[in-house]
């Protein structure tokens, strides 16, 4: 197994990145504001949050796959290519430099394995193309590699299945094919955008096992996007919780799960149902209210409107990143101010 030493040097560092969407009729919407993330080889960072909080947008920004009306007005996305760092945020989306990173260095698995694969090309064709593009192999060699990959991700009868079209496969097999495709050129970073959301629980567990095992084999870094805390517990080393475009809390997954510091993270934890005996059952406590639209976001902490602890500085002043313990950071005024003052 090609075991890459667990260097502490980050592979990808996102610093202070914002993403805005412009529209001809309305003011620009800032979908993501000042996000900091870093990914290390062999480790998995889970990006967690509810729909529309900007987690997918953040992931797509790393590959510059956003729509034309999206801009990255500030911040940098530093990717360590091995020969110095490249700032992906400054590359043109369709430039040669960007395209040689896509797929070869950073690749991505998408949520819907049905619609994310072309309906009119065979699985093998779509994977071959990838290998031929980046490694300049002959079509025949590429197909050998494709079959080996499909075999590795657990597609039975890989040689025949390579000639199958996506609609001839089950959801689980399609996602396996998608994973085989993403791994075709042994990327250093794998972005998985809700890869198990469209699958049933059994298949979900298999796919998660597969991803973890492949990560051990290849030693790649993984950015895992999900809204399922159960999945996070299963795969992640680190977690970043997003709410309405802000990373509100991040850190080691055990640390954050055990001692969540941000009220939103705490509320998320409390809304996970637990199996227990009838006598021990407690009512789930939902987070009150609904997510406001990014247009109505308070200029301070985004969670102000729903936070049970909101106090004076929250609506207007954006909380700074506060170190809670080693590698555990949260953005909340409660942490910076004395609790007595907060409760007063």
């Amino acid at each position, binding site marked *: 197994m090609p075991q890459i030493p667990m260097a502490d040097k980050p592979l990808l560092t996102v610093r202070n990145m914002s993403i805005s969407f412009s529209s001809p009729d309305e003011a620009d919407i800032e979908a993501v504001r000042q996000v900091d993330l870093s990914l290390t080889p062999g480790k998995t960072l889970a990006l967690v949050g509810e729909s529309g909080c900007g987690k997918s947008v953040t992931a*797509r920004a790393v*590959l510059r*796959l956003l729509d034309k009306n999206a801009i990255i007005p500030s911040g940098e996305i530093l990717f360590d290519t091995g020969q110095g760092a490249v700032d992906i945020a400054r590359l043109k989306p*369709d430039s040669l430099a960007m*395209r*040689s*990173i*896509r*797929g*070869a260095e950073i*690749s*991505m698995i*998408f*949520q*819907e394995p049905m*619609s*994310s*694969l*072309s*309906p*009119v*090309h*065979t699985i093998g064709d779509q994977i071959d*193309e*990838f290998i031929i*593009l*980046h490694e300049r192999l002959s079509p025949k060699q590429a197909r050998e590699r494709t079959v080996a990959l499909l075999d590795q991700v657990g597609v039975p009868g890989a040689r025949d299945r390579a000639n199958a*079209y996506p*609609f*001839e496969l089950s959801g689980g097999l399609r996602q396996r094919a998608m994973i085989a*495709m993403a791994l075709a050129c042994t990327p250093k970073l794998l972005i998985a955008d809700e890869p198990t959301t469209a699958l049933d629980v059994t298949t979900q567990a298999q796919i998660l096992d597969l991803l973890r095992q492949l990560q051990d084999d290849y030693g790649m870094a993984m950015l895992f996007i999900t809204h399922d805390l159960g999945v996070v517990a299963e795969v992640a080393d680190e977690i970043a919780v997003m709410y309405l475009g802000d990373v509100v809390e991040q850190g080691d997954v055990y640390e954050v799960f055990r001692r969540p510091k941000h009220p939103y993270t705490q509320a998320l934890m409390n809304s996970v149902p637990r199996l227990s005996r009838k006598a021990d059952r407690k009512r789930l406590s939902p987070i009150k209210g609904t997510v406001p639209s990014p247009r109505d976001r308070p200029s301070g902490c985004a969670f102000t409107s729903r936070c049970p602890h909101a106090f004076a500085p929250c609506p207007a002043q954006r909380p700074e990143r506060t170190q809670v313990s080693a590698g555990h950071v949260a953005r909340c005024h409660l942490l910076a101010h004395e609790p007595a003052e907060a409760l007063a």
Partner: protein
Amino acid sequence: MLRFIINRLIAMVLTLWAVSVVAFAIIQLPPGDYLTTYVATLNSNGDRVDPSTIEALRQQYGFGEPFLVQYWKWISGIVGRGDFGQSFEWKAPVTTLIWGRLGNSILIEGLAVFAMWTIALPIGIYAAVRKYSLGDYLATIGGFIGLAVPNFLMALVLMYLSFVWFGTTIGGLFSPEFENAHWSLPRIWDFLSRAWAPVLVLATAGTAELIRILRANLLDELKKPYVTTARAKGLPEWKVILKYPVRVALNPLVSTIGWLLPTLVSSSVIVSVVLNLPTAGPLLLRSLTSQDMYLAGALIMLLGVLTVIGTLVSDLLLAWIDPRIRYGSK
């Protein structure tokens, strides 16, 4: 796949049989027959015709017989001997009249279809990919003009302009000296120098329509996740677009090929009259007004054949480009 084709062929034969019955019924439908029209024309010119002569002609052509008997004679002639009957008006076998005309029709309209696709594909793709750009608006405006201007008007304008600017008339398909010559390089050149005008005129409306359909289809497909997947592979943008969404967006267009041919034939009648083209359209019109029933029947029948063959071709093309159809037919 073979079974698919065989099924289609059987359905084709049945359809053609139904078309033949309907075609024959339609040409029999107007009151009277060729002889009444003929006598009326003679009378209006002041000629008198002996009723017994007419009766003799009526016997000879078999006009007095019941519908089924007439139909049987006609269809058995076609199937058995390839004999489509006699044209009353031209006093000649229908077969000698129509093949040349029909050949011209298929040639001109085939070229028009070809022109439509070669012009519409790049423009439609451009209009979708650069949505709301200047080029898209120009294509849209051009498309609407192309759709709105009647073919024959366009033909007249083109004739006028080519006379004013180049001093040539663009009627007909061949110069007189090449009219009945065999195909040769100079004849092809002569044909091309004249055929561009009718091809252009016939292709405009279809091109505009194709651009609109392709743009709409492609706009739907461009937003699909598989396009993002292709982009995430690191393919260059033009390759992403041509290999994936364009390929899928073509499906509905390919299925239109089937009825394109017959539509062109029937819509080209007026253009052919205006531009004096020796195609099947004007011949059909003339034969219908004079109740020249065997000629009209043969032409309608052959239009039916064209439609059915066109549909078969587009079905096969569709099965070829879209595996979902190919495997669904198993």
